[in-house]
């Protein structure tokens, strides 16, 4: 419910959907925390991954402090809570997984490292290094992969705009295939894009261990029943690794823990010895 409200709130400029336009106001200067295309007709803010590439593309501004700082701020405050609670494309995958079908439960796999390669190659290296004759690069992740851009921006804009529709070619066809594959696999596998391909999830995962919001396990209270690991659809055992980079802090494990050993939130500071509780 919270995730749906966040997704709607970030994309609530209805006039854009009615007229096939995008919001052009000052709020576009600020990046939203999740993967949300700034060319979505309803989007009020900017996509952090797209903005990062846009800055890296410019030969004069190779180091992005503003966008990297915003991503770092979201990461240090929330970690991958962003993925579990605020990301519109995470919500799409979550809803697709609710469709009744046979499910494939994938545990920890090396495929999780693919998202770090996507981050390093398509989001950072190629926008920095591959340039045209004018010294301008492309946002390669947005161009070749991002299914959120295809779903949130391409489909509504092409449906409403004849000139854009007539310009769509092989690149749009490729992106449509990526989107279709992502959505189809989301019915069977829990959040496949978040787990294996999302560069933003890769960054936020690195912050899970040090972020202000923490999933914490009280090992003295834990009865090792294994219910938390069994309920976790990201393939994490929260009683062993509560700060695992794959954990999106959905909170499912906290609600099934019979010993209330798992807590999600700001960790309470232990009172110093000798001070009253």
């Amino acid at each position, binding site marked *: 419910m919270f995730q749906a409200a966040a997704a709607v709130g970030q994309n609530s400029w209805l006039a854009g959907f009615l007229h096939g336009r995008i919001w052009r106001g000052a709020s*576009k200067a600020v990046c939203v925390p999740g993967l949300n295309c700034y060319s979505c007709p309803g989007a009020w803010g900017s996509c952090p991954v797209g903005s990062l590439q846009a800055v890296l593309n410019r030969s004069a501004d190779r180091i992005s402090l503003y966008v990297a700082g915003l991503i770092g701020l979201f990461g240090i405050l929330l970690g991958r809570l962003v993925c579990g609670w605020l990301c519109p494309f995470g919500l799409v995958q979550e809803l697709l997984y609710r469709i009744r079908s046979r499910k494939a439960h994938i545990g920890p796999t090396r495929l999780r490292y693919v998202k770090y390669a996507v981050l390093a190659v398509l989001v950072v290296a190629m926008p920095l290094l591959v340039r045209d004759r004018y010294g301008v690069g492309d946002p390669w992740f947005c161009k070749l992969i991002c299914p959120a851009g295809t779903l949130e921006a391409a489909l509504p*804009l092409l449906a409403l705009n004849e000139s854009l529709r007539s310009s769509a070619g092989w690149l749009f066809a490729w992106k449509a295939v990526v989107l279709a594959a992502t959505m189809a696999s989301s019915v069977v596998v829990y959040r496949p894009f978040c787990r294996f391909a999302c560069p933003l999830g890769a960054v936020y995962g690195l912050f899970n261990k040090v972020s202000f919001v923490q999933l914490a396990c009280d090992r003295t209270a834990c009865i090792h029943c294994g219910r938390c690991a069994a309920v976790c659809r990201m393939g994490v055992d929260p009683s062993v690794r509560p700060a695992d980079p794959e954990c999106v802090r959905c909170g499912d494990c906290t609600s099934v823990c019979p010993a209330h050993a798992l807590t999600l939130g700001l960790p309470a500071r232990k009172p110093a010895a000798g001070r009253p509780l």
Partner: protein
Amino acid sequence: MSRRCRMLRVFLLVLAVAGIVAGAMSGEVRIVVTKAVNVCLECIGIG
């Protein structure tokens, strides 16, 4: 959580805020806005 981890957390928070301020002062916001207020042709599979 160890004291070292708490210090790292505060350091990263300060670093992030400093990055935002420094980036904003160097004109990076203009690049972000310029990209975001125009339809991203790459994002929609045309560019």
